[in-house]
């Protein structure tokens, strides 16, 4: 479903290498956690995957569609929420969701059904008619998630999705991600919360200084580091060297 091949991206005329020769494959029906310390290249990779950044080399395929060659076709398959999403502050929540439904050409009946369902999930019915500028960070995160899910995308790409959510919403959202994967869709997300990754991800990848340093199920990574190691310990060993 998602295929990343030989991805490279540098900044400052090649002096800062943000992503180096990254290869990833995420098959249908999988929740994939993308882990790494700050500045490891997670957001750069995600931004390239959704078409926000142009890679120096390499390609990203979403359901076999090259994001750079056929961007509109690829974008139709993707639902995306960035880290700390800034939305149109002059729109109300319902206007934003309706806008997203319009541009993804979601039929009226389907959009009503999905919005009603997602409003229950995120408990946002009271705020839907208010301007987004009145929303808290968590509410913005929720309305952005509703906007990303409105067209029922095949691939959901999220940058730190849990950071603004309250415990109830985070719990229901994890359930929602699980249900999507059972329906054969893909959820690809970056996170710093290793507990979340450990509990809900089918597979994880760890990136450090732009390079992939580990990839597999949490069990496989544990085995590499010693059977009793937690994902946190594995993460620290791989990203910072030996941990005492």
């Amino acid at each position, binding site marked *: 479903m998602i295929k990343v091949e030989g991805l490279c991206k540098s900044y400052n005329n090649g002096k800062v290498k943000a992503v180096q020769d990254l290869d990833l494959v995420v098959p249908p029906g999988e929740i994939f956690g993308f882990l790494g310390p700050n500045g490891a290249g997670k957001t750069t990779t995600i931004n390239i995957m959704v078409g926000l950044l142009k890679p120096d080399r390499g390609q990203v395929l979403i359901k076999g569609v090259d994001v750079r060659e056929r961007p509109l076709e690829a974008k139709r398959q993707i639902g995306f929420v960035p880290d700390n999403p800034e939305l149109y502050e002059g729109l109300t929540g*319902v206007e934003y969701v309706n806008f997203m439904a319009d*541009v993804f050409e979601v039929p009226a009946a389907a959009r009503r059904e999905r919005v009603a369902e997602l409003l229950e999930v995120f408990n946002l019915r009271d705020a839907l008619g208010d301007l987004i500028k009145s929303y808290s960070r968590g509410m913005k995160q929720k309305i952005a998630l509703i906007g990303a899910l409105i067209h029922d995308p095949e691939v959901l790409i999220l940058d730190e999705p849990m950071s603004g959510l309250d415990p109830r919403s985070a719990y229901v959202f994890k359930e929602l991600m699980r249900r999507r994967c059972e329906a054969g869709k893909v959820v690809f997300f970056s996170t710093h919360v290793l507990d979340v990754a450990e509990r809900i991800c089918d597979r994880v990848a760890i990136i450090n200084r732009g390079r992939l340093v580990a990839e597999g199920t949490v069990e496989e990574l544990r085995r590499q580091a010693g059977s009793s190691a937690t994902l946190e310990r594995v993460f620290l060993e791989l990203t910072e060297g030996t941990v005492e």
Partner: protein
Amino acid sequence: MMSRRALWALLRTSLNSNFGLSAFRYRLRHDRRRSWWVFLIPFALIVMITPWLIMLAAMFDVLYVQLEPLGQGHLVLTWSFLLGQMVVLLFGLYYLMSAFYYSRDLRLLVPLPLTPAAILGAKFATVLANEYLTLAPIVLPGVVVYGIRAAVGPLYWPLALLAFFLLPVVPLALSGALVLVIMRFTNIRRHRDAFQVAFAVVLVALILTGQLYIGSVLEGDPEEVTRRLLDDGSLVNVGRYFPPSVWLTSMVAFRSPAEFFGGLAYSLLTAVGGIALLAWLGARFYYGGLVGGEEVSRRHRTFSSADLKSELAGRMVFWALVSREWKNFNRHPIFLMNGLFGIFITPFVVVLAVAFRASRAGGLDALVEALVPLPHAEAIVAVGLGAFITFSAGYNTVAATAVSREGRSFWISRTIPVPVSLQLLAKMIHALFFALVGALLPALLAWVFLPVGVLPVFLGLVLGTLGAAAGTALGLLLDMHRPRLNWTDAQQAIKGGMNGLLVGLGTLVLVGFMVFLAFLLAPALGFLGLVILEAVLVGGLASVLVYILLVRAEEAYLGIEL
């Protein structure tokens, strides 16, 4: 007590952020290919403000000639300083309220170990720096006219420079003090949008009144003008009620050492006093007014299934994009007010000025009577109207900031499955709509008052629409290639990128071309021939610009890295 080093760091960072200095340096170092426009800015500035400078200098020159025989030539300086200080006083309220209470960086600054007075001081200094840029074209003509006419000594120029630096301090400090008191003791902060709209309306009313007043003072024969100027209650005498301009004049154009030292002492003391007052009020009131300043009232209406059904109706993608532009623009007071200023106020002021002058010169009938017998009256009306609409559209920042206005929410435009060209077309329709609504007033007035028939007015409207389309496409092209997305204050999105200035320059060139062509070819081609030729040329230019815009759209958007 915070250290001087911390204070200096805060001030430097505020100025850096306001003028985008680091971002500019970075672009120059790392992206020279896309920084070519920087070299156009001084040129654009000179071209755009030169007509204004000439007009103001001519006005002050007339004044000096009238006043000098009465020994009152220095009133040119007083008036010039007063005009600048009034502008600072009025606009300062608007800018300081925005900077003190609604800048996004306050979320970062307030939790830092900085005193309220330090944050306030940094914000004040930033607005002050901007005011110097605004003041220069207002004050410079009067200062230069007096300097040349009055055969001044060598001390005049450095003293005039000192006066220029002192000039905005007192009015801006007074505006700041007023803002602090208003925000501390009223509930305005929770209704900032309504306040900004109301304030802008008041500002427009004051500008129009000022325009009429200045017109009324300057009309008539020279003796009459002089009499009015020296009358009690005239604009010059307003200086008595706001004496800093009189003190600055005494300092610069002194006739005795006592006058010089008096003027200097009063000017310095009031400047220091103004800042001290602001610091004192800031220490007491600033944080009290700031707490809750970010809050926006909410309705908490629960959406029923019926509400969802009506609100979630499907639209065509294009109209969804136009609606996005419309709502994001109209619901942001700063965007809306800047747009309306450019579109409605400029034409309105010009039309009003023409009407007023016409009434002074024997009524509009006299003006019409003078126009109608001209050999190419129809061509003059059509091309004049077309050029005027093009000019107004060029000063409209709606298109030149269309991408910048998206700010940090620009990621949405980049990730939705909609061609960039379609998104830009929606922006163009939105901007063009504003330009054309602004064009209707002059067109209507021309149709009602000028007895040349409907055809020249209609063709002028067509020509103006084509010119406005060219200006709009140029604005979008520039903003697409160099948007300012990382703004912390909405004013930065409008003014920070300088795209509006470059578009203004472009349309000024186009207007010059249209008028030049009319002078050159009207006798040979006649009314219809000339208008058709101009429509073909201007329409051709608009088509080429729109074509470039649409062809380059995808690549340009891809080049914008957030």
